[in-house]
């Protein structure tokens, strides 16, 4: 079920909110768990059992790791079992066909593909389970004794299918002792509605432009650039909008999930970009892969290798395609360059550094969204004049004019300027009073308009479902 859908907004959510808030406090995690299972089963009835088994295995192994924490060998064995189980199920459901295809291509064999459907959100909940058992092993958190609490954490519908990747350590206390409040709920509602707006009013429309470009028979150099810009904005508003909705829903239920995006497109380097983009994934790989490999406290060559490994895995996490691996490795190269050569220069410049980062990110997303590497490179070639495309075309002019206001709003919205404006207004008593009066109304109007878009439209895919 998508947050940006009529069944979620006007059937599922009201029912869950009623059940949740009329339930006694000790039953609220059970309500969350049950509703999360229904939410998950709505899209993936079969795979709800896979998730249940994953949770059960994580629960038992977490307890065993803690129980034998004095016996390092045994404790490590249970941790390895947990990692093998989690990564094994991810490998089977997400990567099996990729490995078989490439093995076949390399050896000339014809091993049949498995054609296993990808369970929704498996990459997210697997990483949450992994972080839980690893943290228990490290002694950073205590194993959760109550399986309902652990299951509610892993399956919690606000963040189940698209993150952010919430660490158990971040919600450990909230699972047992949280206090919902009007202040948190109102903040959650604001976040949720603004996130929904990002998704429906901006991301979906920009996605439409990307689809139009892909189907176009009248491509031009300018159209390739328009596509690259549109897709970069689309994926940002799609994903950050979903993360905002997840955080907003979390706050309504009394949880405080980490911020997942922090205006990445204002970054002055790719290094900074990755501190602002999909923060929960970046920090996950940092804490569970990069630092255990030695991080930057090793010799330069090993450091470079660590960067390559982490970013290849980051790319691969996004999907079982060479495009994602190339995308990750592209960032690895740029990050290594920045660490060893151009980092200082980028820190000093204000314009060139931002231009460089934006171009790098734009090009990376063209490969990211390509059906295969050939398409990705041909699109990048098209942006730079290869392929005999004209500079402009009729379709470019038509769609550029048609989408210009949306692009302008999206570009402005990708900067902190609107937020700064609101904050500065709230500093003055008079404008704060006006904002206090009108804010709930503005939120309602936004919800009303977005409902209209949902009722009218069928173009509502969510990109991160496939991850």
């Amino acid at each position, binding site marked *: 079920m998508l947050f940006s859908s009529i069944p979620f907004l006007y*059937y599922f959510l009201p029912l869950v909110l009623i059940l949740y808030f009329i339930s006694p406090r000790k039953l609220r995690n059970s309500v969350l768990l049950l509703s999360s299972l229904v939410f998950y089963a709505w899209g993936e009835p079969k795979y709800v059992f896979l998730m249940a088994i994953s949770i059960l295995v994580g629960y038992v192994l977490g307890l065993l790791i803690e129980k034998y924490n004095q016996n390092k060998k045994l404790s490590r064995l249970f941790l390895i079992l947990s990692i093998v189980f989690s990564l094994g199920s991810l490998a089977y459901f997400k990567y099996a066909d990729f490995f078989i295809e490439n093995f076949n291509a390399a050896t000339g064999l014809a091993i049949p593909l498995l054609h296993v459907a990808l369970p929704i959100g498996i990459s997210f909940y697997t990483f949450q389970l992994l972080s839980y058992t690893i943290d228990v092993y490290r002694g950073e958190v205590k194993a959760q004794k109550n399986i309902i609490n652990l299951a509610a954490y892993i399956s919690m519908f606000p963040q189940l299918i698209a993150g952010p990747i919430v660490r158990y350590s971040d919600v450990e206390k909230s699972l047992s002792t949280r206090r919902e409040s009007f202040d948190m709920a*109102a903040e959650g509602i604001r976040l949720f509605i603004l996130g929904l707006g990002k998704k429906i009013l901006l991301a979906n*429309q920009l996605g439409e432009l990307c689809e139009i470009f892909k189907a176009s028979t009248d491509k031009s150099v300018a159209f390739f650039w328009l596509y690259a810009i549109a897709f970069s904005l689309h994926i940002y508003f799609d994903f950050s909008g979903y993360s905002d909705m997840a955080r907003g829903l979390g706050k309504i239920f009394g949880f405080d999930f980490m911020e997942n995006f922090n205006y990445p497109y204002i970054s002055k380097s790719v290094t900074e970009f990755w501190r602002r983009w999909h923060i929960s994934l970046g920090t996950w790989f940092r804490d569970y892969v990069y630092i255990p490999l030695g991080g930057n406290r090793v010799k330069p060559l090993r450091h470079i290798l660590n960067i390559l490994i982490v970013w290849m895995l980051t790319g691969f996490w996004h999907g079982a395609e060479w495009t994602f691996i190339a995308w990750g490795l592209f960032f690895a190269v740029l990050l290594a360059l920045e660490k060893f050569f151009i980092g200082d220069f980028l820190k000093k410049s204000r314009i060139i550094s931002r231009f460089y980062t934006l171009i790098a990110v734009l090009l990376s997303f063209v490969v990211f969204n390509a059906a295969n590497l050939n398409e990705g490179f041909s699109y990048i070639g098209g942006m730079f004049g290869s392929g005999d495309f004209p500079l402009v075309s009729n379709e470019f002019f038509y769609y550029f004019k*048609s989408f210009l206001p949306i692009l302008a709003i999206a570009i402005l919205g990708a900067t902190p300027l609107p937020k700064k404006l609101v904050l500065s207004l709230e500093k003055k008593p008079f404008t704060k009073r006006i904002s206090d009066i009108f804010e*709930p109304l503005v939120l309602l109007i936004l919800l009303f*308009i977005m*409902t209209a878009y949902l*009722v009218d439209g069928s173009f509502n895919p969510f990109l991160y479902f496939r991850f």
Partner: protein
Amino acid sequence: MKNKITCFLFAFVLLLTSVLCIFFPEDEFSESERRVLASFPEISGETILSGDFSKGFEEYATDRFPFRDFFRSVKTYTSEYVFQKSDNNGLILQNGHLTRLDYPLVTDMQDLAANKFSYLYEKFIKGKTDKIYLSIVPDKNYYMDTLKYDYEKLVGKMREGMPYARYIDLFPTLSLSDYYTTDSHWKQECITDAAQTIASEMNVKIDAKYTVNTYPEPFYGVYSGQSLIKVPPDTIKYLTNDILNGCKVLDYNSGMAKPSFMYHMEKAKGKDMYELFLGGNSPLITIENPAAKEVRELVIFRDSFASSLTPLLVPGYSKITLVDIRYIMSDFVGGFVNFEDADVLFLYSTSLLNASTAFK
């Protein structure tokens, strides 16, 4: 205080809408979209496990959302006036005219159409007559400032695929004002020049005077409902004279010949007022003109544009047969139509020739 208001308002709106959704869903048929909306899906273990129930429910919940047309119009106005989109779901409003974006040119479609027409020619027409004509009705985008494909290429493809047919060019005889503002079709009262052009090329006289009649109800064309932007409705006018009044019209829609009308007032009261002209789509219609000065027959392979044009060709013929191969198998055409020494006109709109998969 602000936070409490936000929470209560949000909860109230969510609950109220939820109650409306559950207890007051929209009617099953959408007049504006001219389609049946999704029904509540079947609940069973099988449909739930297969995911069919959830898919069906999502369609149902979205389709049957209370005040659907109102919400759709809110979206249309937001798209048009806030985001300044050139089109909304492919619908364009320009200088008071509504139209649908028809882009790009799909050349395979012209090949498909030309092949189908050539099949008809080879099987039924060849050797019986050599008076074969092709005429193409441009959709109104051709006269508008919007994204449009290469119309010359479309015409060229059709002419190339039908070397046995003489082409009659209607493009210069028409202008945007000849089309309804809320519908895709042309206005009968504005296409007498087009009819004259066709008649002269086919070497037939159709000089006749007409009385212009106005249908009393406003005409909200197909785009009006789809777009939901308030555009003043059109007026349907239709031309009559003694010759037309004396014609015998037979409609084979039900498989058997049934008496019908040149201008079908009952059909005009239905979902599509344009069906006033010859009662709308039908696989086969014949018009016999007892006032004809000579025995001369015309067979028109056609789409809906011909419904309003055909009456204007009637004075030149003793019998006109209209064949719509979207509703009759091409192989059956020979059983109903006499091509011997007849004029044969293939009259199709560019819209159909760019999406010609419906031919049977």
